[in-house]
């Protein structure tokens, strides 16, 4: 298993680079207190919107806060938010998809219609609406994003479960007296897990962009806490005098989303037996 994994990384440079970048980000977010040169919320009103220099490698924002330190600390809020949303989507999506695909019949009909209904909401719009109802804040926003993403996972798992439940080996297992729970756990779930891994990776990019959007609109993380989206909101307010402020958080979002997407696409190719080269 581990050997296959490293062989795959050696054969797929882009996947290896993406994974390396993401792991580096994760480490950076954990080590933020030790590697960030300043506190992310320490204001220094003597040097607002300062250009980059030795003390502040990326300059300061309008309150004189160090941009590099905010970027480093913002990593944890941003990554936490993305993972929270995707974990919620998986925790809802996998069991619901298994239930629909494995049970079939009217249960499947009902669940499929609910999935269709949820998929007709533009994700960010529903997230904004739910945040407004639950109360503004990053956690509420990302719970909403997770709920909005869950039908995408449920749909995938349902499709796999529909196929697997008709397999001969499932019939065989049932003849030998296996319970539904055992069949689901031993046969259906392992077969459905690969597309889920791919989708989860791609959804992480979507969740990252959703966090950035919500925080940019003021509906996500609240000041003075840093997140990349919140930094962009700050940069937007000072765009006429300090346009350079928008590049560090914007590029951070771009490259992280790119890394998640690239990793997801590589995993899709690597895990799909019909696409083996």
């Amino acid at each position, binding site marked *: 298993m581990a050997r296959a994994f490293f062989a795959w990384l050696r054969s797929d440079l882009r996947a290896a680079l993406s994974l390396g970048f993401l792991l580096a980000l994760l480490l950076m977010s954990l080590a933020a207190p030790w590697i960030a040169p300043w506190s992310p919320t320490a204001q220094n009103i003597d040097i607002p919107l300062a250009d980059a220099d030795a003390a502040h490698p990326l300059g300061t924002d309008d309150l004189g806060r160090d941009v590099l330190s905010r970027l480093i600390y913002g990593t944890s809020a941003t990554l936490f938010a993305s993972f929270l949303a995707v974990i919620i989507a998986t925790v809802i999506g996998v069991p619901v998809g298994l239930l629909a695909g494995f049970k079939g019949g009217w249960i499947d009909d009902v669940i499929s219609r609910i999935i269709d209904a949820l998929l007709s909401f533009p994700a960010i*719009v529903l997230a904004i609406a739910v945040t407004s109802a639950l109360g503004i804040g990053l956690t509420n926003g990302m719970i909403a994003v997770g709920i909005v993403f869950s039908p995408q996972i449920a749909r995938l798992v349902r499709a796999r479960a529909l196929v697997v439940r008709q397999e001969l080996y499932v019939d065989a297992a049932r003849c030998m007296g296996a319970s539904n729970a055992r069949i689901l756990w031993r046969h259906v779930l392992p077969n459905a897990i690969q597309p889920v891994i791919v989708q989860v990776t791609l959804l992480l990019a979507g969740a990252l962009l959703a966090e950035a959007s919500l925080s940019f*609109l*003021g509906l996500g993380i609240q000041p003075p806490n840093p997140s990349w989206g919140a930094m962009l909101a700050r940069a937007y307010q000072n765009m006429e005098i300090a346009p350079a402020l928008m590049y560090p958080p914007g590029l951070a979002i*771009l490259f992280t989303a790119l890394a998640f997407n690239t990793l997801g696409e590589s995993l899709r190719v690597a895990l799909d037996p019909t696409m083996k080269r």
Partner: protein
Amino acid sequence: MLTAARRAVIRRRLLQAVPVLVLATLVVFGLLKLMPGDIAITLAGENATDERINEIREMYGLNRPFLVQYGSWLAHALTGDLSKSLASGEAVATSIARSFPNTLLIVLLAMGVALVLGIPLGILAASKPDSLLDRVVTSIASLGIAVPSFWLAMILVAWFALEWGWFPATGSVALGQDPIKALHHAVLPALALAGGGLAEVSRQLRSSMVEYLSSSPVRTLHAKGLSSMSILWKHGLKNVGVNLLTVATLLFNRMLAATVVVEAVFAIPGMGNLIVNGALHRDLPVVQGVVFVMVLVVITVNLVADVLYTVLDPRIG
């Protein structure tokens, strides 16, 4: 042209849309129930009088059973009565009618740009897989999908509006009022939206074209002595045409979502600004109204696309 079998397929599609619509509106109305505490007190805001709280309770019929509340809300919503804004007292339907054209203009313009540029790029990339051109197009597409559209919007504003002054940085003008000015205002927001869309279109088109070009009918066309160009642009485009409909539908839905944040950057008084301001001030009728209309639009667009498939694809029905 429309056989009985096809008509049956269309009828089934229309019927399938009904439960989706019911469930989606149930979600929109259910937003109300997510609110913590006494809904009427929360909605009335701080320092509200008892009269105000009772008024809101009355408005939503909060004393009645949930399904009765929902039924009455839906009946009103379907006749165009989306209740009144808690902040301004304006009818939500009126605000939406004023905002929607602004949103539609930039979404349609962006779709036009994405399709006009994305289709040829996707086809060209597919014509020579793994060539330099293909790699460039695929890389740009990967970047385009990962770039936050509102950040792209900020970059466009910084350069094309603030630095060079070619386009206005904010605001919008109604198309009916002054078409030239309206388009001038819509260019930058549309470009910001088109970035991600363009990437999506070229990627989807490339993959379906690559698939088509490796299919056996294409081998026959080559054997008949047709040039690669005519296979690509004539037969290829015709065969991926149905996929194009899928792509356009996806694109529209995607842009309707992305526009919410892009509008904030350009301060365009569209649906996005309406819902964001509503959300920030917990003006739930406005939020519900915008979500309701957007979902209605998405469901309708999907339905029209489904019906068009039935008409376009000879294999159905």
